[in-house]
């Protein structure tokens, strides 16, 4: 089986990292794209090791490519012909996606609300619903103010538990300081919320051919 790590444009060599189960990442040129793949004896199980190996290869490819679309784990092809056919069918959309992520990285944001003591549940169902609605509004406001500092933004729906916002932003690496500045400002405005910013990531959340 062929495991695919990423689809790249303008790939300047391969990284010196091991792929899944120690298999070396290889370059497979197809339809003008550089695919980075490895040959696996069998279907790859989603173990911690395999997931981290996939992530390591994608991460190492980021500085080597002009544009990079990380592939989702768990997509495998029988042989090169099957892979070629899949790429050909999607070539136009892949080009669009590559153009979108070119020169960009992704930042992840998680904003977590206050812990509610279990001894103090909302007095009524209505109070609970109102509290949830307020949280949803707050999440949208926070998302919009951060999206203003990014070239694209995406948000996981719907937030659950105490997660007020789980989102990702596509940014030019040069603008990371100003994005982080915007996060700091929001932190000051919302001292009761916990903010976590992760990245810069390869643009996983903006790689999908259907992503906006």
């Amino acid at each position, binding site marked *: 089986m062929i495991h695919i790590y990423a689809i790249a444009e303008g790939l300047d060599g391969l990284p010196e990292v091991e792929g899944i189960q120690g298999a070396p990442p290889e370059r497979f040129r197809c339809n003008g794209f550089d695919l980075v793949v490895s040959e696996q004896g069998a279907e790859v199980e989603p*173990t911690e090791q395999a997931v981290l190996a996939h992530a390591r290869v994608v991460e190492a490819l980021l500085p080597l490519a002009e544009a990079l679309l990380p592939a989702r*784990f768990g*997509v495998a092809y029988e042989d090169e012909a099957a892979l070629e056919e899949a790429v050909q*069918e999607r070539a136009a959309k892949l080009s669009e*996606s590559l153009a979108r992520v070119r020169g960009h990285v992704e930042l992840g944001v*998680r904003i977590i609300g206050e812990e509610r003591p279990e001894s103090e549940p909302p007095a009524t169902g209505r109070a609970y619903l109102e509290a949830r609605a307020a949280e949803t509004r707050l999440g949208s406001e926070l998302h919009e103010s951060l999206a203003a500092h990014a070239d694209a933004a995406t948000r996981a729906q719907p937030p659950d*538990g*105490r997660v007020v916002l789980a989102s990702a932003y596509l940014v030019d690496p040069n603008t990371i300081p100003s994005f982080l500045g915007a996060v700091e400002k929001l932190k000051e405005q919302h001292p009761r919320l916990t903010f976590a910013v992760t990245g810069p*990531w390869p643009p996983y959340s903006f790689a999908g051919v259907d992503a906006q």
Partner: protein
Amino acid sequence: MNESHPRPLEEQITLLELVDRVLNKGVVLTGDITLSVADVDLVYVGLRVLLASAGTLDRMALESGNGSAP
């Protein structure tokens, strides 16, 4: 994973975000994903990237309690 050394929260969040990206984001060429939802949940359980403070743990615990996870 060494359970006697729990990962600090920051590392847990990063790991959760990483796994979420690798398994749930990224380009899919054909629309055929060989992983089932159960497989994906298993990775989360295996990694223990269950971010208690983010509510994920509650949800996962709930799902396990309902017998949908081994």
